[in-house]
């Protein structure tokens, strides 16, 4: 379980808190989604949780162990982070990118061993992209890149998987496909998965829990069928929103389209 308890953050020298009293609980085998408008503090929260920014107040716990004293590189045992996209400076192949996820297991004066490469290949197979392993990362499509970065995070073998808007830059099919992969792997590997999404519909389809973050604080939280209501979503995004029920699935549409 991942717990964020009473977390506050502000940049040194600034008056306003970017995060105020944030509380989050995310469980094993569940996809927990963080919704929120741009600038709500989602990225800030990730930086605090992953340890890149450590001067926050409050507590972050993984499986009841506080990790606040640990630096980002030490926290790589607990968290694997999938960034929004990765601009590489050099033409590494997909296999080389994925095996970088093993960095914490590779000694300073050493290189990845057979086992590390086997793990990378195993994950590539799990995600159905083993045929890409010798392709240059810079030359594959956006969807394939996102899967590659997911694979890199998975070989880290950390209990908590954090994804920063995994569906941006992806077409509709790839959005659904990556969400399905994440959902399946979260269940199979009993991961604590925490992700941000821009599309509340994807949260409705795939999330087990939703937290709404607005202006640095949690507005509401709960299971999708209970909290994804017209009032809640209108309050979060400050636009008129309609929610339709279709086969016990909530579909969210803007109240006024034309």
């Amino acid at each position, binding site marked *: 379980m991942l717990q964020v308890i009473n977390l506050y953050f502000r940049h040194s020298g600034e008056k306003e808190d970017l995060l105020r009293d944030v509380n989050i609980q995310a469980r094993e085998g569940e996809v927990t989604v963080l919704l929120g408008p741009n600038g709500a503090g989602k990225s800030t929260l990730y930086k605090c949780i992953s340890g890149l920014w450590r001067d926050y107040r409050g507590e972050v716990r993984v499986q009841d162990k506080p990790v606040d004293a640990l630096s980002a590189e030490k926290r790589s045992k607990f968290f694997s982070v999938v960034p929004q996209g990765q601009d590489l400076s050099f033409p590494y192949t997909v296999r080389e990118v994925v095996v970088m996820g093993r960095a914490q297991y590779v000694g300073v004066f050493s290189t990845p061993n057979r086992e590390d490469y086997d793990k990378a290949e195993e994950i590539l197979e799990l995600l159905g992209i083993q045929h890409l392993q*010798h392709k240059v990362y810079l030359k594959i499509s956006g969807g394939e890149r996102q899967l590659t970065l997911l694979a890199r995070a998975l070989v880290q073998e950390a209990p908590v998987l954090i994804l920063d808007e995994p569906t941006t830059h992806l077409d509709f099919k790839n959005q659904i496909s990556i969400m399905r992969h994440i959902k399946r792997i979260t269940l199979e590997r009993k991961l604590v998965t925490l992700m941000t999404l821009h599309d509340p519909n994807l949260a409705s389809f795939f999330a087990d829990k939703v937290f709404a973050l607005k202006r640095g604080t949690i507005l509401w939280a709960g299971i999708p069928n209970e909290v994804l209501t017209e009032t809640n979503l209108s309050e979060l995004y400050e636009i008129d929103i309609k929610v339709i029920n279709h086969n016990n699935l909530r579909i969210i549409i803007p109240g006024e389209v034309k």
Partner: protein
Amino acid sequence: MKILSYRLIPSVKILIVLVAPLVFGFISLFTGAYDISFGEVLRLLLYGISSVLSADQINLQVIPEYGIIWDLRIPRVFLSFIVGASLAGAGTVFQAIFKNPLVDPYILGISAGAAFGCAISIGFLEVIPVQVMAFIFGVLAVFIAFVLARTQGEISRLPLVLSGVIVSALFTSGVSMIKFLIDPHRLQSIVYWLMGSFTLADWKGVKTGLLGLLLGMGPVFLMRWRLNVLSLGEEEAKLLGINVKRDRFLFIGFAILSVAVATSLCGIIGWVGLIVPHLIRMFIGADHKILVPLSITGGGAFMIVADTIARNLTSFDIPVGIITAILGAPFFVYLMKRGGKEAWGK
């Protein structure tokens, strides 16, 4: 088929780059201003090796040809290799650390800084070994370039190159100042050495250079895979569990060590550290596990070829730095036009 294309072809390519310095080095021994026949060179080579092995002294050693092969050409080939290997190895390190395919020891101003250190040592402070001064000012050069280029925590690509230009200019004028100030006897040795040449190569230089190469590139070779992760940038590398500050510090320190020793032996030689890693990357791929050792041997081979051209093109020695620039500049233009996004990254 797959095994053929993913395993065999790279292995053959790797082998080519690994043996290249041996082949070019061997060929280079048969060329030179003093005319010695092919058979004679072979005979003297074999004779030299056997006399080392059996220690029986025949007076073949007194003929001048023996000295030319064993005390001029062979140390010169070794020194070219060592310097090329050091510069190209260091270039690979800096390109990865600064995630910037446009930098090398020359562009970052390290070569100029090291040269300034050497000039001070030669000119005023003979008590301190040139290598030590070269290292100190090499570190200073990187530090200045780093501070100038650092904006909001990240090192951006173009500012780093521009900072290198500034640092280079600063130390180059420093060297000129020293040349102006010191007494003419010492001036000559500085001027000669600064042009970037292996004319003064001897076994003592080879020993010093080898030590610098081993102490600098040895640890870099062992740590080489981390360059992959570091080249993702500071935050990404940290999130993957890399101690970025410590590793950067080690890599930069070891790379400067190699460059400082190389510069102290042959002056400023540009382009090698920039071009060789590019070439190898295009030939074999970006994985530093392979890129680092091959840049080292490839850099050595490149420098042997450049120096062989330098000493055979005319009846006198052309400074090898001129040759590397003549070979390098058009190649660089070619890279720029052809490689596009792939060679330059983004």
